[in-house]
């Protein structure tokens, strides 16, 4: 049976500066960051308090209640989750681009990507804990479009979870809007060995 979809709110998003630098294109560890770029990152980070609206929605299904895609096989249960940081950051990024502030736009876009990933990580942790509470072993988190789970399977995720209730919709091309959204599954196994398989 599928559990009633539940929301995860009040997530606190924190940033790893090194990851942000990597996302905006810095590839070496030893480089000295120029001051104007440092200042821009700090300024754009400050905007985040009112630009980020992190929220997730998830449900946990028995294997029999899934669409029995091969990637679910051997799992006792499957957790499906959609996470987002909302639309506001994207609107601000667009505004910066229209003002020819490309570097600021890139920084903000990267912060948004990192924030969406952070929301997914935190939601993943919460779901993994739920697996353990059920005496099951959680697998790693996998998203549609990765490994053997086709991007078209986004439609399945959205058929099970009401994405609109957290402001996320799916386009015909299986793109999530807001773009800074992540969907994923975690398989819950009885057997620890199975949970570590890369499926």
């Amino acid at each position, binding site marked *: 049976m599928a559990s009633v979809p539940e929301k995860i709110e009040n997530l606190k998003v924190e940033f790893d500066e090194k990851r942000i630098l990597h996302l*905006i*294109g*810095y*590839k*070496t560890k030893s*480089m000295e960051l*120029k001051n*104007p*770029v440092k200042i821009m990152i700090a300024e754009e980070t400050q905007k985040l308090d009112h630009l980020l609206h992190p929220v997730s929605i998830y449900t946990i299904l028995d294997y029999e209640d899934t669409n029995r895609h091969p990637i679910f096989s051997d799992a006792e249960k499957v957790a499906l989750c959609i996470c987002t940081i909302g639309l506001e950051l994207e609107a601000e*990024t*667009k505004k910066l*681009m229209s003002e*020819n502030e*490309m*570097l600021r*736009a*890139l920084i903000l*876009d990267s912060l948004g990507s990192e924030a969406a990933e952070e929301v997914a990580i935190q939601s993943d942790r919460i779901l993994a804990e739920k697996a353990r509470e059920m005496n099951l072993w959680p697998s790693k988190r996998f998203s549609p*479009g990765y490994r053997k789970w086709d*991007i*078209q399977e986004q439609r399945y995720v959205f058929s099970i979870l009401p994405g609109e209730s957290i402001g996320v919709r799916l*386009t*015909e*091309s*299986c*793109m999530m*809007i807001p*773009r800074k959204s992540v969907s994923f599954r975690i398989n819950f196994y009885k057997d620890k060995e199975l949970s570590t398989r890369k499926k």
Partner: protein
Amino acid sequence: MSKEDTLARMEKAIIEGNKQEAEALAREALEEKMDLLEVIEKGYVRGIQTVGDLWERGEYFLPELITSAECMKAAMSILQPELEKAQIQAQSKGKVVIGTVEGDIHDIGKNLVASMLAANGFNVIDLGADVNLERFVEKAEEENADFICLSALLTTTMLGQKRVIEVLKEKNLTPRIKVLVGGAPVNQKWADDIGADGYGENAMKAVKVAQNISKG
């Protein structure tokens, strides 16, 4: 100050990403009635070429490229009206029609490529995101473009890149119009498989690919 000094300062302004200086020097060039083509080619363009070299040597990264491209754009926006008034054509490396393919609204990567191409002397026509596939071909024909650059960030939408090439072939517009592809799921193999003329792993590589094709 000698002309050479001014040109060197223009080059330096672009290399250092100093927008105010790049703009001030462009205004100075107009006031001093300098040869604007010389100003562009021996001042600003040299700067952006050096920036490209620094990037290739791993000394500059994307943020520096963007900052320098923004400086270039700022200086050119001051010089351009005067060039037009005098009916002088700055040397173009080629005309590019660029956009993100239908069904895909990702645009930051495409905007970066557009910005880098413009800074490096290409005449760029940006159609935006979620662009109807036939529109790319129509616009390229209408503008007599040399390149179509297609961005796609999804495995579902990258098929649009293939479709554009098919339409170009149907209209016998290949190999005259060259197609460059890019985006997260795209790689060289995909570019080869669909018959694209080039693949840009990132904005600067896209510029290098376009430059190499332009050189023939």
